[in-house]
């Protein structure tokens, strides 16, 4: 039977990956989910009791005995969402005009510039952030230049502020916004733009009525690809934000590596995951369907 041997071959081909991802990807996520409902033990371990206070501590109900609800967790969560959203806005403002610019160049130049824009993406994140430490710290490049030019007399504090975190995050995640937007701008049918201006549309009208709506899928994809890694990021706030700009990722890291409250850390992490899934769901509902119809 052809079908039977085909099924078997499919099994051989997919078996190893299925097994591997089942055990080492889905497995750990499931264990983490279970952990988020366990009681933290005294010395970093866990007690195998059902314990929903881990979520209560974050969301507003508390254990009367020893876990207190602290609004600071919700605050940190909201701050992380705000920083991630701001980062989406920053990268969008930087990348959209850049994508328009690249798409207007000759094909050979386009290839070169896209190559140049993606290249630093392959450089280690720590190295790229280190560059910004050199620029932003008090004795860094920015302050030295400004003092050298006589514009300021005292170094300004940029590092260890939210501004520094935003600069670092935008820098790290730029290609994730640029590439999807460029892909949709490049696909854009120039005839439509010409038609719009021939029919008397001003450049502004043409942009708002034709270009923007047609490149919306790219904007949506880029926004999602930037938002998700921004939300859980703890390296950027750690290096450029110091102790002042605490994000949800820092909180998770602390629970695992210093506070040793793994169930609470898992609960925080599950919440990051829920936000991510909700976003992907909305994205697939809206853009996925629109993409199929158009």
């Amino acid at each position, binding site marked *: 039977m052809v079908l039977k041997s085909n099924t078997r*071959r499919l099994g051989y*081909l*997919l078996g*190893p*990956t299925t097994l*591997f*991802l089942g055990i*080492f*990807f889905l497995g*750990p996520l499931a*264990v*983490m989910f279970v952990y988020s409902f366990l009681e933290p033990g005294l010395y970093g371990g866990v007690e195998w009791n059902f314990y929903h206070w881990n979520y209560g501590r974050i969301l507003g109900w508390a254990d009367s005995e020893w876990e207190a609800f602290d609004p600071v967790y919700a605050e940190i969560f909201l701050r992380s969402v705000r920083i991630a959203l701001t980062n989406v806005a920053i990268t969008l403002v*930087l990348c959209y*005009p*850049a994508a328009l*610019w690249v798409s*207007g160049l000759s094909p050979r130049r386009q290839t070169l510039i896209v*190559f*140049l*824009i993606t*290249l*630093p*993406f*392959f*450089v*280690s*994140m*720590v*190295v*790229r*952030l*280190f*560059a*910004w430490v*050199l*620029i932003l*710290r008090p*004795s860094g*490049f920015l302050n*030295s230049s400004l003092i050298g030019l006589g514009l300021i007399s005292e170094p300004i504090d940029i590092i260890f502020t939210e501004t520094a975190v935003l600069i670092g995050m935008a820098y790290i995640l*730029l290609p994730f916004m640029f590439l999807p937007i460029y892909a949709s701008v490049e696909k854009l049918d120039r005839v439509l733009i010409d038609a719009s201006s021939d029919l008397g549309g001003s*450049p502004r009208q043409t942009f708002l009525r034709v270009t923007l709506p047609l490149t919306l899928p790219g904007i949506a994809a880029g926004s999602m*690809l930037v938002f*998700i890694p921004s*939300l*859980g*990021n*703890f*390296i950027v706030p750690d*290096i450029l934000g110091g102790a002042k700009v605490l994000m949800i*990722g820092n909180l*998770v*890291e602390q629970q695992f590596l210093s506070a040793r409250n793994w169930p609470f*850390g*898992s609960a925080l*992490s599950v919440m*990051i*995951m829920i936000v*991510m899934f909700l976003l*992907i769901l909305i994205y697939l509902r809206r853009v996925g369907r629109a993409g199929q119809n158009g």
Partner: protein
Amino acid sequence: MKRSWPNRLLGLHGGLFLLFIYAPIVMVVVYSFNSNPVNMMIWSDFTFDWYWSIFGYPTKLNEQTLYVESTPQLLAAVKNSLIVAVSTTTFSTILGTMTAIALYRYRFRARAMYQGLLYMPMVMPDIVLGIALLIFFVNSGVALGRISIIIGHSTFLISYVFVVVSARLAGMDDALEQASADLGANPWVTFRRITLPLIMPGVIGGALLAFIISMDDLVITYFISGVGSTTLPVFIYGMLRRGVKPEINAIATIMLTLSFIIASLGLYLRRRH
């Protein structure tokens, strides 16, 4: 394109955009040759000393900003990174390619769901996957070390290879495979003589991508590397946390150069075929 006002502004923005991307990187490279040990940002003289000093050779500048004791650790981290990256790349390239072929060739129920499963590791935030793996390894008795890092990296790199190889397969001409089968070649011969050579650029591209991502991974490795199996990015992150030293410039420059070479090679291969 017309040289209108909006277009000039766009061009200006494009130039600034590239400047924003490259200026910090260029600065790291330039200042790695600066001999000023007191303020790294004030240029005094051209020197190779930081490069000598990271490899443990005593230099004149090195006496003042001692970092010699880190050299064995640094070299161990490089070794760990290479072992992990090579193992992960081999493993995930084989599995990713097999998966891509399976999903290209066969239509089966839950195929869309399976694809969804393959995309999940790529969108999962690093920190979530990192701590999930940490809890899993600690509970299942897998010692944290190179093995756990290799497993951890593979969970998401299989997906990257899958995506790159799938793209290659999508552009392939089925007629050649059919001709091979019609001429009496068995499936294995067809695969080795026809399919594999055709998708090879995709496989190599996927492997290079996997290698680079594995070499550069910080967050997941940070959680699941035990004592003594620190990789290069984790090592540099630790150094940065202790304070900024001129030696980091030199290490960063070497890493930059290597990443650029590998990435250029990968992108060049993809473009050519």
